[in-house]
């Protein structure tokens, strides 16, 4: 219980803009990558299979991000992912990121589980829900 999924990614040349810092949509891309890795390695539900075989989807419902400090080329971004709220088909992720211990961004990212066949939100499958439950943060 109260698990935290943690990953580290290098900030690459291709993430950065002419001001020399990460172009902010690339941070969302890294947030999504952390979520994919959480499914695959944290929840043991290969993200590619969820999309390509089970024909589900995880569209963003809302994203709220505070940019606290910059990340630049050569940095290593540490991302911590927790579940802030687990709904019937929605999942609110609390995502914190750090560069050498300094906060970079913190996000609330809500997704839902979606059927590619019906194009509608569907309940989170029970086995997945019980594994997600372990990442629900207290308070």
């Amino acid at each position, binding site marked *: 219980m109260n698990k935290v999924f943690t990953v580290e990614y290098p900030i690459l040349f291709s993430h950065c803009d*002419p*001001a020399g810092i990460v172009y902010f949509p690339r941070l*969302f891309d890294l947030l999504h990558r952390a979520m994919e890795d959480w499914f695959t390695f944290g929840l043991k539900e290969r993200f590619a299979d969820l999309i390509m075989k089970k024909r589900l989807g995880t569209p963003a419902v809302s*994203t709220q991000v505070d*940019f606290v400090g910059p990340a630049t080329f050569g940095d290593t971004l540490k991302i911590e992912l927790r579940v802030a709220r687990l709904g019937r088909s929605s999942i609110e992720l609390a995502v914190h990121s750090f560069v050498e211990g300094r906060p970079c961004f913190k996000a609330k990212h809500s997704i839902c589980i*979606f059927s590619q066949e019906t*194009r509608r939100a569907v309940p989170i499958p029970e086995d997945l829900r019980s594994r997600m439950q372990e990442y629900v943060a207290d308070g």
Partner: protein
Amino acid sequence: MRVFTIERRIRFSHCDPAGIVYFVNFFDMINAIVEDWFDQVIGLPFQEMHLQRRIGFPIVDTDCQFFRPCHLGDMLRLELGISRLGRSSIEFRIAGRVDDEEKLRGRHKVALVSLDTFRSMPIPDDLRAKMAPYVTDASGDRA
């Protein structure tokens, strides 16, 4: 109150394997409307801002709700207004529609900094005067 508008055709490259626009690409489009507004309305293209004047408007925080997915071929109309003009910050209000359907609504706050010190700076009066017509009514609901 003025609203600045751009249109973006949803391309193959915007969409993901689930067949809808990958949400990160919406943030790239939000950046695009801000960039076009600075160029066409404020008269400060990003190349002059960043490379000559050595100033920038990095993101302070951003918040976007996605109501309905967008699909390949859609023509997305993006609208920009200002919900709050601070001393050094601008809080944009962004709306995205395809035909009459609202697809997304965002609040996107940036602040002026020196690229040499990364400290915030007041928005110069000449720029502020050009921004002012885009400030929405205080009574308007916040995105």
